[in-house]
């Protein structure tokens, strides 16, 4: 087994956790019973034994994550802790297009070695060194560029730069990708519910199109919520997707104000539960404001989604240090 470029040999019955600790490496851990998942690590080469991946979400499993305390290596592994120093890639702005009054689409060149899954997020670093993380709305195989949907925040360091100074051809750097809120095809017929507010639509739009691209046959229900209809961007594209894919259903939803035909007025959570009824057997993807995500995690679970089938991505605001 290799860790930080050094090879170690496990004795029979010795776990990766024990092995690393024996050599003086600190690995976060707690229960040492394969339950608490504190000792999550990732194999970058070799296959971790099945027992070490028990209880781990599919999305992590397919990326080689395993529990160090349950892992008695059977073949050569190259392992790392999940918080790795992610690579930094050079990219260039291709286009900045308004999607609504408050959201722009940013397209940047996708660096050759930048491999991502639709729904993951990446960190953008501009010329001035401002870094912000955004969900990727694009899908590998459908979009040549890296596509982001970015909310324009008043006085926002990155969004201000995007609306005032940035233009096609301007260089930036991309880090990542990170996150495990993406489509993992374990059951192509499983119904899925995707719910998001604001630019929480970005990863969901990617996940939905990725699922369709991978031949998902189960129903895909996308609920997009906004305070007013002006915040419901991409309506046309989503209605087109609904018209062309029999198993894709778009449910736009606003809290108040005038709404055009087909847009529900009222809270998204109640609308979702009323529309779908029991959520037993569903997989759920929830993205957007932290309070919304937290509320929906509980609502969809109580509605019948298994704990293991809830995938969430909370968008935390940037905190400026003084």
């Amino acid at each position, binding site marked *: 087994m290799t860790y930080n470029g050094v090879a170690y040999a496990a004795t029979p019955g010795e776990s990766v956790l024990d092995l690393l600790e024996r050599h003086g490496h600190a690995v976060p851990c707690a229960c040492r*019973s394969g*339950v*608490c998942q504190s000792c999550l690590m990732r194999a970058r080469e070799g296959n971790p034994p099945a027992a070490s991946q*028990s209880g781990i979400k599919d999305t992590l499993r397919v990326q080689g994550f395993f529990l160090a305390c349950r892992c008695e290596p059977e073949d050569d592994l190259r392992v790392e802790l999940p918080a790795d120093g992610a690579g930094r890639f050079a990219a260039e702005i291709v286009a900045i297009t308004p999607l609504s009054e408050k959201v722009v689409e940013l397209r940047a060149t996708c660096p050759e070695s930048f491999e991502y899954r639709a729904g993951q997020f990446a960190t953008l670093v501009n010329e001035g060194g401002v870094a912000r993380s955004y969900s990727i709305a694009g899908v590998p195989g459908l979009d040549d560029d890296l596509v982001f949907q970015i909310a324009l925040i008043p006085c926002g360091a990155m969004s201000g730069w995007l609306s005032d100074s940035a233009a096609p051809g301007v260089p930036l750097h991309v880090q990542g990708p990170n996150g495990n809120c993406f489509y993992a095809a374990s059951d192509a017929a499983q119904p899925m519910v995707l719910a998001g507010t604001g630019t929480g639509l970005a990863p969901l739009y990617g996940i939905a199109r990725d699922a369709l691209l991978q031949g998902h046959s189960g129903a895909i229900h996308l609920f997009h919520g906004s305070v007013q209809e002006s915040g419901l961007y991409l309506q046309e594209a989503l209605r087109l997707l609904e018209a062309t894919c029999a198993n894709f259903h778009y449910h736009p939803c606003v809290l108040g104000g005038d709404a055009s035909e087909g847009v529900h007025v009222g809270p998204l959570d109640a609308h979702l539960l009323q529309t779908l009824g029991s959520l037993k057997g569903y997989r759920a993807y929830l993205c957007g404001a932290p309070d919304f995500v937290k509320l929906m995690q509980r609502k969809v*679970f109580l509605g019948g989604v298994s*704990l*293991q089938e*809830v995938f*969430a991505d909370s968008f935390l605001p940037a905190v400026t240090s003084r």
Partner: protein
Amino acid sequence: MSTLYERLGGEAAVNAAVDVFYRHVLSDDRINYWFDNVDMERQAAKQKAFMTMAFGGPHAYTGQDMRHAHKHLVDKGLNDSHFDAVAENLAKALGELGVAQESIDEVIALVETTRADVLNR
């Protein structure tokens, strides 16, 4: 002689039971406010650890862990009535999953052994 954990169906049974049990807990107004601020993803792992222990399965939680984990809740008023309500929801969930009353009694007896530690007595 198979263990209670094996008889109940091991890890697969734990996963099924966690969903049903935790759904009951979150729907029970006597206790659900204790879970208002928990992170659902972390809670899933914790509930699984709890259920594994309740099933007599492999776990490494000690009385000290139980004490430490519940100390701040006891300070806020966690008491026997809450412990009883959790146990009641657990029995109800297992009943719904078709677990024999005899095994439910064994599970509840195991959970009962943690009462003093959970309530920091």
